């Protein structure tokens, strides 16, 4: 139960023509300690992501900083090697269904036809087992616009060499032909070819981002990863760049993966939204529906956290409590539950949640813990310095939401409190309605989020 189950989403609605499909993609960075650099754990930057990006769509990938969205973007761009999972290129709806079905089948129990189909899908569409040419074609076809336009342009190269670089590398252009093509690209992003012989530092932030966009579009890619392309810009310039991106998408039929922490930006731009929390997708679906009827409390909180001038909804807003958990040992069950305003017993409480809670909110009590003896993540004996502390701890626990999840009453003997929670499997992304996925266990059971007045006690 402690181990992460591969996420298999049953009977999900496929996208008509997917540029990229991610299955259970993981990026775990080893944490090394001591003189011998032994691995003591893993930072789960991306921890089992399922995502489909349809051709011509804009998929908005939203989340707080540190949730793994930039790392995921880098995996898609080929800059970071995933430590697990599959990336599939150009799958039709039928093929997506096949992949979803065949992933759930044990290789040993596959029929001959299944095995042949699986084989041809792998060699034709899976990054890592595709032919080298196809893989290179995908890399050419997927370009990136980075967040910091100052850091992403070599300060010692002329704009001509920056924008012309992909053309030199892949098309062998040089001299006048290169200049002509670079001029075209600069015109296309609204900069004008007269800027060819200038250095990046001679431009404003917005202009530099236009240069980045020109470089990304030099090879006529179909798919562009936009990694917070406007978050370093002034608000007025942001709008210009966003409009440029929309115009270019219309002209060139581009597919965007738009990574941002700003739901407001994504609302206007994207056709589909994926909300990410602590290395996993919390919710996925069409923009309008995700906005108007979120299926995950985190989405609703992100939406409502945008400050509004009229002060609407202020009284009924949900809020996150506590801080982002440590990605080395993420919470069991639903990853949001320790911070979630509507978490209940079934959301996956464990010993760590209780300890983190008192560390955050009763640090003096936390100081008096002398020993924690765990049987597993859900059962432990917590020993305090004094019996008084132990009773205080038990009282706190009994008054908290976590207490709903204990599977037998707390036992207090001397200064030791024995706690045992019900074991709950890790929450997985499930299709709740057509094309809409959520990892919230409560909505999966209830079909919708609880009403907004219901908050923590």
């Amino acid at each position, binding site marked *: 139960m402690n181990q992460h189950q591969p996420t298999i989403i049953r009977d999900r609605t496929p996208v008509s023509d997917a540029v990229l499909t991610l299955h259970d993609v993981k990026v775990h960075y080893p944490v090394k300690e001591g003189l011998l650099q032994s691995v003591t754990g893993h930072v789960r930057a991306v921890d089992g992501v399922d995502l489909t990006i349809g051709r011509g769509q804009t998929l908005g990938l939203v989340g707080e900083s540190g949730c793994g969205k930039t790392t995921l973007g880098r995996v898609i761009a080929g800059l970071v090697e995933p430590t697990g999972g599959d990336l599939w290129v150009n799958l039709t709806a039928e093929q997506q269904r096949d992949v979803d079905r065949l992933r759930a089948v044990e290789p040993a129990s596959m029929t001959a036809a299944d095995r042949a189909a699986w084989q041809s899908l792998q060699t034709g569409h899976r990054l890592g087992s595709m032919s080298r040419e196809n893989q290179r074609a995908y*890399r050419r076809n997927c370009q990136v616009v980075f967040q910091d336009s100052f850091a992403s342009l070599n300060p010692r190269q002329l704009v001509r060499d920056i924008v012309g670089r992909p053309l030199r590398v892949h098309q062998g252009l040089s001299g006048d032909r290169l200049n002509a093509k670079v001029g075209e690209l600069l015109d296309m992003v609204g900069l004008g070819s007269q800027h*060819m012989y*200038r250095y990046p*530092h001679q431009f404003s932030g917005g202009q530099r981002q236009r240069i980045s966009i020109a*470089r990304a579009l030099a090879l006529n890619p179909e798919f562009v990863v936009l990694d917070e392309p406007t978050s370093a810009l002034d608000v007025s310039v942001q709008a210009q760049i966003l409009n440029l991106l929309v115009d270019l998408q219309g002209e060139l039929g581009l597919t965007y993966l738009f990574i941002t922490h700003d739901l407001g930006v994504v609302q206007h731009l994207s056709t589909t939204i994926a909300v990410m929390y602590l290395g996993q997708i919390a919710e996925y679906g069409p923009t309008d529906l995700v906005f108007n009827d979120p299926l995950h409390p985190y989405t609703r909180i992100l939406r409502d956290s945008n400050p509004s001038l009229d002060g609407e909804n202020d009284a009924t807003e949900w809020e996150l409590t506590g801080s982002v958990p440590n990605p080395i040992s993420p919470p069991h069950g639903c990853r949001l539950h320790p911070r979630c305003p509507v978490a209940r017993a079934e959301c996956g409480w464990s010993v760590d949640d209780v300890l983190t809670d008192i560390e955050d909110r009763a640090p003096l009590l936390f100081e008096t813990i002398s020993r924690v003896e765990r049987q597993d993540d859900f059962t432990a004996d917590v020993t305090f310095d004094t019996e008084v502390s132990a009773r205080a701890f038990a009282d706190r626990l009994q008054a908290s939401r976590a207490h709903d999840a204990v599977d037998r009453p707390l036992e207090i003997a001397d200064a030791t409190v024995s706690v045992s929670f019900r074991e709950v499997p890790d929450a997985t992304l499930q299709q709740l309605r057509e094309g809409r996925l959520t990892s919230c266990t409560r909505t999966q059971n209830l079909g919708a989020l609880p009403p907004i007045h219901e908050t923590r006690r």
Partner: protein
Amino acid sequence: MTALASPRISLPTDPNHRTAAGVRWERRLQLAREVLRNPLTVFGLVIIGFFLLMAAAAPLLTEQNQPDAYQAPRDWSNIDVPPGTDGHVLGTDSTGGDVLYGIIWGSRLSLQLSFTVVFTTLVIGTIVGSIAAMRGGRVDNVLMRIVDIFLAIPELIFALAIAAVLGPSFENIILALASVFWVKYARIVRGEIIRVKQSEYVAAARVVGDSTWNIYRKDVLPNSLTPLMVQATLDMGNVVLIGATLSYLGLAQAGLTEWGAMVSAGQSGLLAGEWWVSTFAGLAIVLWALAFNLVGDGLRDVLDPKMEGR
């Protein structure tokens, strides 16, 4: 149509008439102008220029000694004469060697020492540092531990040991200094490359699909060289300082017109009031080291990464 009637005059600064090479030169000129704004840097450059001229014009300024120009001509009738004596503007030493001749021809040796040592160590250090940083892992570990061994011993002592083993000669001093100085550059280059490798423009170049060699050549190396250039300029002075120390300690040929050797030769006369040999040679060393330090500092101020791009 008169020239006045036409509003469309194409100026040389018209962006459409620019070329990549022209723009790059413009940038270098601008950098040079910034460097020259600091009077101390200009002072240093003047001294360096003065020494360069002196080295170039040595055969014109003095009559070249035969057969070895780097031994001062002996005037046995004028031993230990003070400055101002007829024919010996800066006096002579205890073997009748002319001090002015020694300083003029010594500038050639100092120049040779500085450029040879700094150039070779720069090349070796850049290669070693680049391999360590680009390869990483075990290669990096091994190379950097070797560098650590070198850095653990003070450079003067190390150079002294090597020169002593190789035997006393000016060439061996160059060799000794070169084998000591490269480690510093290897270390600087490695650190810089590791920093630049993590930058987003390197990530962008990888997304574009350029080769590792091209990324190294176009992105990594040009952006790692600034602190190296500053260090190299400073070392042009330091090398002569340490080289002079070695020849002062007797590791150059006897009677060589090397400034350090001259300070050493004049030392025995100091108590007898014959100050001129050691003083003028010492002054030359100080001026040389000072000049390159001033220019190095000036370069650092202009090339400071925090000021970059402004």
